[in-house]
């Protein structure tokens, strides 16, 4: 099939459809995923075509959703659960952290936990409280979980396919403000493994590392920097746990400068992990300290302030300038 242009939302929908078609053990569960097709319509039409037994509207209880998904996985099913918004995953956090993440290890590898937890995340859509957060570091910190986030339609499709096929629990963060961004999707050509980073743009003066919603911002920053004669490489991490440090190292050995960009607070964030590891691996290559651009150590602000809070083009370019000034 030829490549087709579609939105991230549509690519996810197609990928979920494919997963339901391919494996009768795949289930979709969550609040409003049925008739409504989810509040973002990612599951649109799936209940109509696969029935209420496969696409399950659950009671309004996140701990219940994840807890029962664990039980279904124990019984051989492969549940894909939807948490409606980032801020509502916390009632399920206990089940995810204390149970889902540890089950395989506790059973000495005898049982598998093929559960995908889809979470629309991040800000930029003018929402009220608890609808704009980036809690990825909280999950990446937990051993046993894999944490990923696509930044484009092709990855949305393929990473979901890979997540569903994985026998490990996957926290699948969907950048909600990019849902309607369109990109090329080729459903035939199978891409590289789930945890591999991708070079989104080649450059030689500095590396920007990002994932999910911030990849687009970094690509725009790189394009703007180009006009000033700066050549910026953009690395799309795709996976926040594990992290493809080899790819980051390769890029940094070439460019010698690194800026990590994410929406989540900088303090104790994934940027800290990347900065520490890359400093260790690339100490003699670095021309500047690894810089981080991200959110503040303050509650995600009300919508009218989110443009100030979220890293935008200016803040990324400012960090680029600071790095290049060393």
């Amino acid at each position, binding site marked *: 099939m030829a490549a087709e242009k579609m939105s991230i939302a549509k690519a996810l929908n197609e990928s979920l459809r494919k997963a339901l078609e391919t494996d009768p053990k795949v289930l979709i569960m969550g609040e409003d995923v049925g008739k409504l097709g989810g509040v973002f319509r990612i599951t649109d039409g799936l209940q109509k075509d696969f029935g209420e037994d496969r696409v399950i509207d659950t009671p309004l209880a996140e701990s219940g959703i994840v807890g029962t998904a664990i039980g279904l996985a124990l019984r051989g099913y492969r549940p894909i659960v939807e948490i409606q918004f980032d801020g509502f995953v916390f009632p399920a956090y206990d089940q995810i952290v204390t149970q889902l993440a540890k089950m395989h290890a506790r059973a000495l590898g005898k049982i598998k936990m093929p559960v995908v937890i889809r979470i629309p995340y991040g800000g930029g859509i003018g929402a009220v409280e*608890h609808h704009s957060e980036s809690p990825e570091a909280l999950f990446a910190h937990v051993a046993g979980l894999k944490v990923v986030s696509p930044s484009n339609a092709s990855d949305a499709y393929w990473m979901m396919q890979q997540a569903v096929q994985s026998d490990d629990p996957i926290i699948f963060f969907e950048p909600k403000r990019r849902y309607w961004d369109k990109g090329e999707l080729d459903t035939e050509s199978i891409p590289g493994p789930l945890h591999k980073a991708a070079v989104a743009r080649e450059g030689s003066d500095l590396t920007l590392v990002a994932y999910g919603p911030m990849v687009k911002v970094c690509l725009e920053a790189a394009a703007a920097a180009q006009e000033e004669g700066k050549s910026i490489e953009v690395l799309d991490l795709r996976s926040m746990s594990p992290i493809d440090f080899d790819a980051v190292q390769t890029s940094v050995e070439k460019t010698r400068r690194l800026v990590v960009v994410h929406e989540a607070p900088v303090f104790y964030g994934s940027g800290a992990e990347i900065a520490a590891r890359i400093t260790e691996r690339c100490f003699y290559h670095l021309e500047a300290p690894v810089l981080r651009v991200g959110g503040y150590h303050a509650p995600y602000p009300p919508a009218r302030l989110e443009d100030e809070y979220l890293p935008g083009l200016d803040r990324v370019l400012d960090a680029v300038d600071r790095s290049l000034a060393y």
Partner: protein
Amino acid sequence: MTVESTAARKPRRSSKRTSAAKTPAKTPEGSEPQLVQLLTPEGERVEHPDFEIDLSADELRGLYRDMVLTRRFDAEATALQRQGELGLWASLLGQEAAQIGSGRALRDDDYVFPTYREHGVAWCRGVDPTNLLGMFRGVNHGGWDPNTNNFHLYTIVIGSQTLHATGYAMGVAKDGADSAVIAYFGDGASSQGDVAEAFTFSAVYNAPVVFFCQNNQWAISEPTEKQTRVPLYQRAQGFGFPGVRVDGNDVLACLAVTKSALERARRGEGPTLVEAFTYRMGAHTTSDDPTKYRADEERASWEAKDPILRLRTYLEKQDLADAAYFTALEEESETLGKRVREAVRAMPDPDRLAIFDHAYADGNPLVDEERAQFAAYQASFAEEGN
């Protein structure tokens, strides 16, 4: 207080709902849910053996006025959202009687823990309605001091506040005070673990709390059947306290039932679950499209039970209000609408540095540092601009 245990319940939706075999066994057809009702949809006063209420003409008109103004406020907020002045709005349309009835049952020293749709209760508590709009406009996360009116901030994470209410009530009891606490939540929220835990704690500690569940039949797209197989008020029984189902579109019944539950709490007899059986006439929020999941006829059938209309019919039949009263109220509504509109348009965006305000009560050096960096960065643009 009675605990109805065998309330027959009419399935609300037609059999065209799919996989009927797997949905709960329905109680017999044709029987209305057993509701405490004092005012019928036709505006007739009826008696209930357990819930008596005797209101003066002034008080009845007061309830009517509250409902009318609340509806007007709500309509204005919906319009403001459509005009781009608010990012989102959660309308209470149809739930005025549940909120005004229960809200007017409260004493000043009682404490309210709302969810995010309790605009009518806020009105009863004396919270300026314009204060409710800040969070929906995106300028703040609250907008009022909860202790001024004993009306806590709106809570968006479903069900969380029922535990806060229970803990607050445990504190009230420890203090030896005779006030009561009320927690509002929806039928969907009843599925949350937090709500079950609130039931457990309140029962075990005999906390003076009333759980006021507005069963508006829907949790976004999910009907109540996706949350429970028993009528919600019956849940209370398993936790060891009484549950009552009240006609949520009957302001008199909501007032009487809530009053009785609050008095029970004050007497030290512990929690009560009140299920107000009502209907969300509009969308879940302005972001929602109910045509995706529910039939127009359903709303039409509930319009016949409109809470405001039925009290108006009663007032008119009983000659408790004349045309001049209704005209004056209409004018008052318009004035309120205008005031709300102007207040919202005049609401300034917060100062940028407000991002860092109140992150901690005792201050925090990291926040101070980030704030200073942020301020310097912002200032650099101003310099460039000059």
